[in-house]
């Protein structure tokens, strides 16, 4: 699949690469201007939420997609990020963004601890262990009064200074998320082309074979998990920044983990733009079901999610990216 793409890049050479970079810059500029095209706040907010979901899904994609280790416990890192941002405010009256680096640090420590038992496992076992680890943390948070217990934490109700980064318009959030997502996708792109990317693909394909060929499997799985955990934590902090509130379910709930997996799987696991494509489809769908069905909307949303991932796994395990390649192949056959 990727063979064809690589051959084409090679034949195009430096000139082709220049065109590609220009294309990406043009798309980025258009994306940055999008909030001006969207007049009402409702649509601007959805656009910001799409980018936020794309950030956490892209972060998951590093370990779940590229390294093939299907974590269903990434809410741990998301929750740590969200809680760190608001806990700094609750305890010390810090601006929420000041908590973000601490969230990342704590997430890296958590990732190291969680990796110890879970990286000895493969496939399903890894997934189950990550669920158990995340649920364990969630129950501890629910029962820990310092971090707000079952009620959760609130951010500053009224911005005290610009440092609080609390805006009434969704636009500043949109641009912050766009910048973060761009940085994350650049890191992902760079990673996938580097030695690490090849190692991860080897691990994903056949871990034992990779090991026997001398790939330091554990170390590179750790690198992928740490990178993924750090960015997921940042996504959690950004979420807390925008929403100004987090409770155990919206931070550490299993559905937070599931959402990252579903969005990535829909767009295409292990592809650069898959998570973004998945978010562009699923987040507006989610907003629509919530708006249409009201309070029962959350239930309907997850029934839809469930059907979506059953259909993907049954008919197109590679997600939309795979469908796209199939369409292209069919088009070429038709042309020939």
């Amino acid at each position: 699949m990727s063979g064809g793409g690589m051959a084409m890049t090679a034949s195009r050479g430096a000139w082709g690469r220049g065109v590609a970079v220009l294309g990406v810059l043009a798309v980025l500029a258009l994306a940055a201007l999008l909030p001006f095209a969207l007049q009402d706040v409702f649509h601007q907010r959805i656009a910001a939420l799409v980018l936020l979901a794309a950030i956490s899904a892209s972060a998951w994609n590093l370990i779940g997609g590229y390294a093939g280790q299907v974590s269903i416990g990434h809410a741990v890192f998301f929750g740590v990020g969200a809680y760190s941002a608001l806990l700094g405010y609750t305890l010390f009256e810090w601006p929420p963004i000041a908590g973000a680096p601490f969230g990342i640090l704590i997430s890296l420590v958590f990732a190291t601890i969680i990796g110890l038992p879970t990286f000895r496992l493969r496939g399903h076992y890894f997934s189950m262990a990550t669920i158990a680890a995340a649920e364990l943390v969630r129950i501890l948070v629910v029962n820990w009064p310092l971090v707000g217990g079952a009620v959760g934490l609130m951010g500053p109700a009224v911005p005290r200074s610009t440092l609080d980064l609390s805006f009434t318009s969704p636009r500043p959030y949109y641009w912050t998320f766009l910048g973060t997502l761009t940085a994350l996708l650049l890191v992902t792109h760079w990673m996938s082309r580097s030695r690490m990317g090849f190692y991860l693909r080897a691990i994903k394909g056949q871990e034992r074979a990779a090991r026997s060929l001398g790939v330091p499997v554990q170390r590179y799985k750790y690198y992928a998990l740490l990178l993924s955990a750090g960015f997921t934590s940042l996504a959690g902090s950004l979420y807390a920044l925008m929403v100004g509130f987090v409770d155990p379910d919206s931070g550490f709930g299993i559905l937070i983990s599931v959402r990252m997996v579903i969005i990535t799987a829909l767009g295409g696991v292990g592809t650069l733009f898959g998570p973004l494509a998945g978010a562009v489809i699923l987040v507006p769908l989610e907003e629509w079901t919530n708006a249409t069905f009201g309070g029962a909307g959350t239930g309907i949303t997850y029934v839809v999610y469930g059907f979506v991932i059953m259909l993907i796994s049954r008919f197109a395990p590679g997600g939309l990216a795979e469908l796209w390649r199939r369409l292209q192949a069919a088009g070429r056959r038709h042309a020939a």
Partner: protein
Amino acid sequence: MILAQLVLNGLLVGAVYALFSSGLTLIWGMMNVVNFAHGDFVMLAMYVAFFAATLLGWGPAAFVPVAAMALFLLGVLVYLMLVRHVMRGPMLAQILSTFGLALVLRYAALWAFSANFVSLPEDLTGQVVTLGGLRFEPSRVLAGIAALLVTLGLHLLLTRTALGSRLLAVAEDRTAAMLVGIRPDPMQALAWGIGAACTGIAGGLIALFFYVAPSVGESLVLIAFVVVCLGGFGSVPGALVAGLAIGVIESLSAFWVGAAFKDVVVYALFLGALWFRPQGLLGKA
């Protein structure tokens, strides 16, 4: 005395855990597929029991077999329509398929039955008996003993009958089983049916003394994972021992550490066990 009571209650609940975990371990051992919807199967069976008892006035002797049959059909259906098509596919597809099923079942139940906790009428199985200082709640005793018997029955079915041999042959080596004339597909469908029927019986029994809610499957599926991992993948006797042990550990930790933390103890134990013995406590190295 309170310790003995806690151990007794733990064993009785543990027998039910062992029963639905046996269903999971059977499916797992046969085709190396994990049913992430296993806990939600139990949840559905609990609702079958609830509606049969409240709307139709049935007793457990009637609704447990009905729940078993309903879940058997569901299991076969899930195998034929979903699992059969993804089990040879990539790992992600295997995980997502039953996970998606779990979401659909859980949130469809939430939508249809609301998030409220409900329970069966308490007088369904008679009065509490006190014997030698121990309280025997008839609902728990009935559930525990019935679950124990069904689990043993499943073990005998697998080890002592021709059908069981065919099932285990497919589990052992699919190709070799085909060579001696066993078609794996019906066997695997049957394994899903039996595995799901175990959740049907277990759900009908656990509903006798446990609250019924759409979210109940979420913690039950984790308990089943813990039991199967501790007992060794694919082993019914292992699941029985581990199920009883988890029941007792849960009961004791609810008393000593607090009810809110009993799951934390179980999950921590699970992660610890995976760390030190990834092949399961009773599994082969």
